[in-house]
């Protein structure tokens, strides 16, 4: 990042910066390099990618030990068709590991810069605060996408290597050809990825509130956990459809004989609602808040 170049404009108010051509593009590039190149984030991605690998190896070793056919849905299917390893891994990671990882990256986005004292330098880049926030959001979204894709790709490779891939048997008992099956699993991956956008927005908002990144990360993960706890309580059934995590498992819709577009659209609409609310909250906070460090 060309902080040195832009430092000259430092006296200009941050919300009316002198425009430079390509400043946003350069900022995006540097943000992506920062997020995806940070050692902690790489360790997180590798950790997530280990889940399908471990799951695959354990299932491979256990299938002859009479332990096959046990456990939650999908997992038992993996030994018959490696394609299911992608779905099973996402199924296992969706409730906690994935939100944890994404909460860490999105909670860190602004608060991390604030805590190391680099936020004030970022604000003198000739890019408005709103656009800077958008760039930060893009970085967090890219990390979320990388997490989901990492699980999917490692799952696919491990599954294909250990169990082979075959025509896909849907939850409804119908068997579809391999190409259709791969398309449906890709749909599952896309849906899980899009399901995380609401959480990214929540994390970004918390990140603008504090200079303590750990606080923002923890708060983000707590939102996901509280949401899934509320989702289990029948007493608050009326708010269930609007909960952040309520529709996360609707990815299974892709594996039914006739996927219901309504159900999928509903799940994505709820995520969009969370993105709009917490995105604008983050924007309002970030563009008006005093930045002192």
């Amino acid at each position: 990042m060309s902080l040195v170049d832009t430092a000259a404009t430092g006296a200009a108010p941050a919300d009316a910066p002198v425009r430079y051509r390509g400043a946003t593009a350069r900022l995006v590039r540097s943000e992506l390099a920062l997020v995806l190149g940070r050692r902690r984030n790489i360790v997180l991605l590798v950790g997530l990618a280990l889940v399908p690998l471990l799951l695959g190896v354990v299932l491979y070793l256990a299938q002859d030990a009479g332990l096959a056919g046990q456990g939650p849905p999908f997992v038992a299917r993996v030994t018959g068709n490696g394609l299911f390893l992608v779905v099973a891994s996402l199924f296992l990671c969706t409730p906690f590991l994935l939100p944890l990882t994404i909460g860490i990256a999105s909670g860190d986005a602004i608060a991390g810069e604030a805590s190391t004292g680099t936020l004030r330098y970022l604000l003198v880049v000739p890019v408005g605060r709103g656009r800077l926030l958008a760039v930060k959001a893009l970085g967090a979204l890219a990390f979320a996408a990388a997490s989901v894709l990492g699980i999917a790709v490692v799952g696919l490779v491990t599954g294909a290597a250990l169990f082979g891939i075959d025509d896909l048997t849907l939850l409804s008992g119908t068997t579809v050809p391999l190409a259709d099956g791969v398309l449906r699993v890709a749909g599952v991956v896309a849906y899980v990825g899009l399901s995380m956008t609401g959480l990214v927005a929540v994390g970004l908002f918390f990140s603008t509130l504090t200079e303590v990144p750990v606080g923002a990360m923890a708060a983000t993960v707590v939102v996901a956990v509280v949401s899934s706890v509320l989702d289990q309580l029948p007493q608050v059934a009326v708010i269930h459809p609007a909960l952040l995590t309520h529709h996360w498992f609707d990815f299974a819709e892709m594996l039914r004989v006739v996927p219901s577009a309504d159900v999928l659209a509903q799940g994505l609409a709820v995520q969009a609602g969370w993105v709009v609310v917490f995105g604008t909250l983050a924007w309002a906070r970030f563009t008006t808040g005093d930045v002192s460090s």
Partner: protein
Amino acid sequence: MDTTPVSPTRSRIRAAWAVPTAAVVAVAGAFAAPPLLASAGSATLAELTPEQLLTRVLESEPQALSGTVVHTARLGLPDLSMTQVAGADPVSLLSGSTTLRVWSDGGQRSRVSLLGTASEYSVVADGTQAWTYSSSDDEVVHYALSPDDAARAEKMRATARPPADLPTPDELGREALERAQRDATVSVDAATTVAGRDAYQVVVTPRSSTTLVGRIVVAVDARTWSPLRVQVWGSDDAATPALELGFTDVTFAAPDDAVLTFSAPPGASVREIVLPLPDDAALAGLAPSDLPTSLPDDPADAPLPEGTRVTGTGWDTVVELSDVDVAALVAGDPGAVAGLPQVDKQLGSAGAQELYEEFAPEGDGPGVDLDTVALYEQLTTPVEGGRALSSALLSVLVLDDGRVLVGAVPVDALRAAAGE
């Protein structure tokens, strides 16, 4: 170098925070609007008497349809929803909300899928055979007639002729109404909207004061005359129905062929169950048509299987079975199930009836693998001389002497009936 940004003015701050406020309002509005709009569109349907309405329903042809049904049971039973852990299972219908997808071509073929979190339990029926498929244990159960029986059934269907004295739907409707009005009042309630469709509501209110059933409300589509929703209200809760089965979305069009066909997926375990077809003599006694020639007589007059006794009338009817080996039944002993007298379960609507029949255990023993002993212990409470299950709509009294009493009355009424 001063890089601290100039503090925004107060009005700018206010303007910025107005954006998320507006966003919250817009999002909340977007989520609240569809249900409000749906309930606001109460139609101006032509007034119909219960008699006219019933006639229309009986006249209507079975419809090809596909849709989503939500079944909600608030029977006061312990929560058995295990779909998250164990996958979709018909037992989850006993409590809580369950979503089902239904497809039917209006004739021989249909599919019902019980949706769980990342699991599904499907029932596919095609004429004389049916399959169930459980995604959680990858098991297919295939119910079919033996080849001989299937051929006979085909022949019978081909040669079947409706009898000359078949009553018109009008007559049948009047008769059904008269019968219903013996023990209950039947009325047509204000029009409503179910799954976005205008619907008439038929309300059946039992006259008896002891029965647990408060009233039964059936919503009937105003254009196709298919039942869209059945609600059974308990007598002690006027706010929410104890049992509700209704479409949340439905289209009346023939479903895709792929949905209605089933072949066992490779690798799945298949259990074959051959259903016996009654011999020709027994079948000859049945009317070879879907429409009965007359409604069954009062259950008290009907010939009863051995070991079955019916006391009480109308809604207070108590069915008593004697010599039931409950312990063996609970343990899933097929022999004990086979020895059970066949008591037909009659539900309020054709839709509910069909659904029940699709899910009711057939053949030799329940198709669901469950720890039935634990389930039995959990569902029933010990009472003097046996165990009792009491729910919002139905009570079951299992006595140690092998008698089982069932009725839509409180447990005390069952005990009184048992003491007679």
